[in-house]
């Protein structure tokens, strides 16, 4: 591979800074070394821990099956990095090519990779959020504290928001025989991510496992006792739930505040980047030296009309980090696009849920294999006559096929017979997604329009 002088110098003695030392940051660093980058590598992370894995936090860690400090990410190789852990990035100077840090120092870079991810959206009322017993779950510290409190045997746990994280927390509580109330603003759990048809199955699962599930309600207030401990929650239907623990699971916020005023195309929806993971600036011009990967990125996807797509998916973080790292140290002709088909999984109430594609784009849904009533099925989402997504409950081994159907824009409803097609899988029905502009737990895949400079949170009509 012919490299010009400056690229060779970058690879040999350049300085690459990675802001965000979690899954995407670590995998990118490993890829950089794997591909021969021998310069200086600095890893900046606001959490004090070395990179760790988050999916177990709402599952095995809450159950006490895995101690919270045993979730460190396995290393693929040594990365020989200078670690600046427990230090948050506070600003970016694109002209001086410097990242400013919370300890007052700054770091210069030749190439910058931003993998700052997301954080849990906090309870909006700060006084109530400060009550003892009110939690969010995103970090290993969150998980440790919550696990201890669950072990102590609370009277009742209130989970606010029945997205994937909220549902997994409820599942972990029930597995420990703890009384749980789940309050969800939407019509059913998972409704934002998978629609009402599948959400209804999730609701039945929860109720069968003894969850006190309340849908179509909002928590209007959290009330503490005189010692500042959570006592109860007030719901919009006028009822009250006595609980000493509340876990706020209202989705995530992108960690982009530190980039305010930097000139980068960053905002509440994430940082816009091209398919090669290069960040856009606010003028919509792509940068050459700033790259983005993981949950904080939003990038255009050819399968979905080149709309910018934000994904809070483990597999996406890894794939995008690898592409970003590769592109950071290669010339434009050798760069690769990030065209990952969204996919995610969840384990809750004894069921393995997996999905590919972008379910919230789906207008209709059809059960192609198995049946909803068995809680064991494959359902396909259709958008304008083509397959756009699929979800499986305990049938993950078929997903590869449906992923190809999505990638080939195969016709919807599927015109072919398949094994285990049931009578109730003969006709598509409306998928039942709520209006995405309504705040809820939120989907984990979001299409966010065509503008790289989108700095506002606004509903982009998906079915215009």
């Amino acid at each position, binding site marked *: 591979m012919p490299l010009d002088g400056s690229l060779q110098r970058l690879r040999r003695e350049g300085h690459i800074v990675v802001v965000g030392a979690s899954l995407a940051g670590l995998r990118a660093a490993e890829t950089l070394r794997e591909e021969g980058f021998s310069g200086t590598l600095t890893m900046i992370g606001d959490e004090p821990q070395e990179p760790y894995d988050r999916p177990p936090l709402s599952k095995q860690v809450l159950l006490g099956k895995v101690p919270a400090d045993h979730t460190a990410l396995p290393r693929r190789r040594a990365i020989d990095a200078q670690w600046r852990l427990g230090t948050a990035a506070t600003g970016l100077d694109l002209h001086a090519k410097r990242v400013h840090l919370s300890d007052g120092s700054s770091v210069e870079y030749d190439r910058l990779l931003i993998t700052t991810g997301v954080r849990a959206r906090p309870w909006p009322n700060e006084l109530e959020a400060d009550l003892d017993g009110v939690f969010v779950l995103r970090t290993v510290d969150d998980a440790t504290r919550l696990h201890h409190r669950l072990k102590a045997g609370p009277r009742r746990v209130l989970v606010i928001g029945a997205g994937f994280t909220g549902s997994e927390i409820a599942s972990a509580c029930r597995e420990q025989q703890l009384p749980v109330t789940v309050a969800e603003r939407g019509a059913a759990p998972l409704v934002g991510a998978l629609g009402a048809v599948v959400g209804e199955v999730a609701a039945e699962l929860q109720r069968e496992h003894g969850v006190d599930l309340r849908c179509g309600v909002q928590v209007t207030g959290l009330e503490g006792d005189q010692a500042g401990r959570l006592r109860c929650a007030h719901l919009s239907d006028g009822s009250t739930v006595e609980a000493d623990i509340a876990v706020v699971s209202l989705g995530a916020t992108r960690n982009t505040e530190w980039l305010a005023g930097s000139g980068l195309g960053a905002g509440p929806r994430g940082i816009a980047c091209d398919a090669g993971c290069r960040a856009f600036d606010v003028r919509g011009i792509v940068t050459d030296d700033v790259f983005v990967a993981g949950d904080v990125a939003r990038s255009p996807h050819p399968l979905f009309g080149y709309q910018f797509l934000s994904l809070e998916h483990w597999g996406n973080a890894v794939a995008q980090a690898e592409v970003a790292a590769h592109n950071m140290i290669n010339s434009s002709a050798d760069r690769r696009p990030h065209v990952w088909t969204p996919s995610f999984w969840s384990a809750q109430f*004894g069921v393995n849920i997996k999905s590919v594609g972008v379910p919230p784009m789906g207008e209709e849904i059809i059960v*192609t*294999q*198995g049946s909803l009533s*068995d809680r*064991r099925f*494959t359902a396909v989402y259709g958008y304008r006559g083509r397959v756009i997504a699929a979800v499986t409950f305990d*049938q993950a*081994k*078929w*997903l*590869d*096929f449906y992923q*190809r159907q999505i990638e080939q824009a195969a016709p919807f409803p599927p015109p*072919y*017979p*398949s*094994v*285990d097609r049931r009578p109730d899988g003969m006709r598509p029905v409306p998928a039942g997604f709520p209006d995405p502009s309504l705040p809820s737990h939120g989907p984990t895949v979001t299409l966010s329009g065509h503008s790289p400079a989108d700095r506002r949170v606004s509903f982009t009509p998906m079915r215009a």
Partner: protein
Amino acid sequence: MTSVALLHRITDYANRADPYPLYAELRKTPVVQDEAGPYVVSTYWEIKELLHDPRISSDARNLSPDAPRGPAQEEDPNLPPTFLRLDPPEHDRLRGLANRPFGPPHTPRRVHDMRSELGEIVSGLIDGFRDREGGDGIDLVDTFAYPFPVTVICRLLGVPREDEAHFHQWADTIAASLDPVSAEDREARAETTRQARSDLALYLAGLIEERRKSPRDDMLSAMAAGHGPDGQLSPVEMISTAALLLIAGHETTVNLITNGMLTLLRNPDVLKRLRDDPDLAVPLVEELLRYEPPVQLLPQRTTLTDIEIGGTVIPKGASLWLVLASGNRDPQRFPDPDRFIPNRPDNQHLGLGSGIHSCFGAPLARLEAQLALTELVRRLDNPRLLEDPPVYRQNAVLRGPRHLNIAFDGLK
């Protein structure tokens, strides 16, 4: 079409020792209809795709009436079909119930907990080589690769030790019937096979009943006890499932172990590496499953509708052969595919299948092969092949040496 002759040559016993050049020929046309009728798929990505395709059935009832039957492994006509030959939802129900006492999530430690017992069986069998030291060698198949997995499956199911000899007998007879042979031979053997199958079924029925009354920590007891809301296996389903596990559980593992030792003896540098570094056994067995898979091809799939793949339309109801061993040597997927590289990276081989029918006993088979090969190379001093290639079994599907005669200077 040249491929017509190819398929015939692949099943031809004369090519049993090395079918791989033929597979390379076959891959020039990823999907091809053979003269005899079946559509043969030989390239990695196409096979992988079909293994996950819900338009593909494993149930012979979906074959069109005029489609040719593959060299199917016969099952007992008096028992219900096993999950190997069924589609969901029946497949999922039977396999799920069979898996309950075998693997995660309900029994995550079953295989792990057998480790020390497996080690003892291996040691015992190798100790038995002692009286043959320095002599005219041993047949590794008869003395080791065959008795080891049969003993293991007996322990797993819960067959009492004093009955293991019967079990070996029935297993031998039934296994022999799986080799496609000439019509006369088959006729002559049919009665013996029927008898063995019915004796085995009768025996299993009795044992299951016994375990139901006084359960122990084994799979038959767990199956007989049944659990939870998913219901349980009916008595005949239990018998057919247990018989399937018995046959499938050793017919394949014997080949894996024998192919493994053959490959190691042909690659002395790798043998030495394994001896120096027993941890190499884990990736080495994966490479073995790629390089010399015990199940060479899956001959019993059919299409529920017309399917286009690799530029060919396979019509509904066609018989489909998926040549796993060929996909495993596909240069489009594996660099340098004809080299045995024990620590090969990115080794997503097809040796245990893929999709819902992927090998049920995979964790056990892997552990058996890892332990067996590690111990054989550790304990045999200067092992060497007495003939190469060895004598192969007839079977083109479950391919492996019938005998593997080796010599060695001593035992550690």
